[in-house]
């Protein structure tokens, strides 16, 4: 496609920052109801930082726009959030989008202003996992308590449970991680992956 300096595309770099956040409020949990009302998303917590970063977010958003209409497809939303350092499950994102059908996921598009409140919701969500959580997550499979897990067991778990990964993804994840016994030292593993 035409490079980003397509003359018809509106200038992306001159966006003003969104309105400054109101003073931080005590953090209520996001709506527990199945439908999430994005219009009522409050600005909370680390939000001053959020406003400062939203132009960064807009640039990153633009990177994922393959069509040039300043929007991204529903099925890209989760990845953009992840690229921006968040960690939603696919289910959480689906809920935010109103549980769209597979066709909707592929065809419907959303612009940056629609995306921001979704991102904000995810940022506000309490289920944040850090380094320790991931290590704990792997430690459950450490049967001998020696800091390693069996690669084979991990493969089964990842491919059959939760939000299943396919063989290519698993291969990519495990690339070069297993020693000659098929075991993985998981602390080092997590450190390596998180340093991207």
């Amino acid at each position, binding site marked *: 496609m035409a490079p980003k*300096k397509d003359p018809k595309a509106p200038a992306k770099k001159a966006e003003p920052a969104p309105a400054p956040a109101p003073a931080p409020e005590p953090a209520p949990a996001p709506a527990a109801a199945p439908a999430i009302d994005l219009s009522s998303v409050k600005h909370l917590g680390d939000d001053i930082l959020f406003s400062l970063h939203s132009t960064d977010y807009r640039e990153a958003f633009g990177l994922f726009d393959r069509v040039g209409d300043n929007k991204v497809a529903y099925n890209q939303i989760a990845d953009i959030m992840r690229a921006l350092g968040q960690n939603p499950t696919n289910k959480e994102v689906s809920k935010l989008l109103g549980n769209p059908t597979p066709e909707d996921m592929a065809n419907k598009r959303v612009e940056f202003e629609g995306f921001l409140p979704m991102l904000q919701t995810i940022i506000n969500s309490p289920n944040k996992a850090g380094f320790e959580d991931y290590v704990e997550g792997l430690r459950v499979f450490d049967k001998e308590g020696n800091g390693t897990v069996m690669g084979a067991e991990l493969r*089964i778990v990842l491919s059959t449970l939760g*939000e299943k990964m396919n063989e290519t993804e698993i291969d990519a994840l495990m690339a070069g991680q297993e020693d000659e016994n098929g075991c993985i030292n998981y602390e080092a593993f997590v450190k390596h992956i998180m340093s991207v």
Partner: protein
Amino acid sequence: MGCGMGKSRIQPNKCDRVSISVPAATAIRAALLIQRWYRQYVARLEMRRRCTWNIFQSIEYAGEQDQIKLYHFFGFLMDHFTPASSERNLISHIFRENEVCRDADWERYFCYKDIEVPDSYCGPHLTFPMTFCGVSKLMEAFKLKQQLHARYVLQILGETWRLLRILPNINHVSVCHTKEITICGDLHGQLEDLLLIFYKNGLPSCEKPYVFNGDFVDRGKNSLEILLILFGFLLVYPNEVHLNRGNHEDHIVNLRYGFTKEVLGKYRVHGKKILKLLQKIFSWLPLATVINHKVLVVHGGISDSTDLDMVARMDRHRYVSVLRPPKAIRPTLNGNKAGSGKDEDASGPAEGRRRRVRSLTNTSAPGQRNNIPRRSLHNLPTGGAQLNCSVEDELKERRRLAGFDQTYREVKTLDSDSDPEFGEPTETHGHEWKQIVNLLWSDPMPQNGCISNEVRGGGCYWGPDVTEEVLGKHNLQLLIRSHECKQDGYEFCHNRRVLTIFSASNYYEVGSNRGAYIRMGHDLVPHFIQYQASRTCRELTLRQSVGWTERSALRALRQQLFVHKSDLVGAFQEFDPNNTGVISLRHWATATERVLKLGLPWRVLRPQLINRAQHGMVDYQQWIRELSITEPKPEVSDTSIMETMYKNHSNLETIFRIIDTDHSGLISFEEFRQTWKLLSSHLKMEISDKAITDLAQSMDFNKDGSIDINEFMEAFRLVDLSTHA
């Protein structure tokens, strides 16, 4: 860590012995955690990869835009040309046209028969007519890095030239039940990719037709080898092998992008002759291929004025370089200028340039074009007899040439390569030329419409509505084109009515992209085969490959930043009225984009470019200082000359190579000096004569009064010493 991808696989017997050892709920929670975190890892890598891609693409297109600047410069020269000016010799030197000859003369000039092949030659020997064995022998030799002797090169090229002259402008190909056709995109001198395609897909043969969609040369270092192999197969299977002309099959583009240098480097004695013959061959390459009357294959694309009937009818060889309007746009014999076509919506670089140049240097409106003295690139007389001519003499020379043409027009045969006739309506030539520029240089865009392609400096951007219209008008169902590098080697757009195919893998850098080719059968449904040529990159993990390409892109970007140092400091200072030495990161991003105009996501790139930002502010002077690049060898005190040198690096090289008409690799002191003087006045720089002379003297490394172009360019090659590389 560090093993290749794809080596570990789920081994069935291991799985049998393994079961999940923890309670289901725990396992599910753990699985979700790991899966989320893995997907975040992949997404972050993807963002970095896209950033890197953007960098490469912007810099590439900015480089092509440099060509506009070059032609601005030529236009500037034209408008300041006076017979009395001291740079006159240089300028006529630059614009010297090819001598007009008959085909018979050319055949004599290109004759290989007197070239002896010495006994010491250990490369392949070819016999003619070309056979499949001959081409295979050639391929084997190239794999062993042998070089074909100039005699055989000229022989192959001569045969190719003869064959191409009888081919039509548009190849028509039929694909039947038993045969599938293979379509390849840009190769750009990357022999490894061509060999990989042949290895995976099989060699061309009667059962295996191929279409090669242009851009065989430039950038890669085996452009000539690729040409020889493709031409070899063309000679052996003329009905099954089809070549389309690309925008790089153009000798002016080659001057800048490396093919000319490659040929002259490999063939010091006969290089010039080989280049001349290639110039003719390129102009005779067909412009497009149509498969089963339904699929159009062309290198660049289309425009809203694309008319395949006009394309089929024209004399394509008239347009030797698409970057210059055709020779036939010239004054009628009584000296009045005939119109050069009413191309107000200039989609060609030359047209646009001429108008732009006029607005810079003349005050006359476009409508008064007929009154402006004729100063196009082509109206300078040829040969060496022009030293003392005035405009009057120029016209006399024109008439002489016209007369010269007249005397042998009677014996001119259909496939003559002589100068096209005079007296034909010049508007037609303008239209035809525009058709070719659009076919070879255009790019698709997502929005409807058709606008001029300012980024490349040639052709247009065309939208989905134009695709529907043009395909509909010609009863076609698919447009296959190349011209743009794609991550996966191919990409659809315009509702899958336009398909881009790109066959040079690792184009920007090792691991940057895959190449691909198309297989298509009777049903005209394209199937894709992707590949990546280098063994090294296949063994890299995704993260290593992204990292490698990213480092390379950042290096290229830092060079661009370095080259624009003074402009950047100026732009930063606008945001720092109190001269504190620091500005906010937001302002840094805005200023940098204003100067470089690359359209890059600067805020996303910031952590990679600035490693010391406190409280959202950056010390810009220090940052600029840290963009360290090696100092060049010569001692030049005037730093503004240095910056100009770096900025105009590629254009300078192109100009010097144009000046160096005998391709000796040397230009005289005086030519160098005059070029600099002209360039600096065009760029509105103040450079004293003394500074230029000093510069020239320092460039003359061996003090023999001439300057070696290669040495000169080496001295100003940018090398990144920065510690974060």
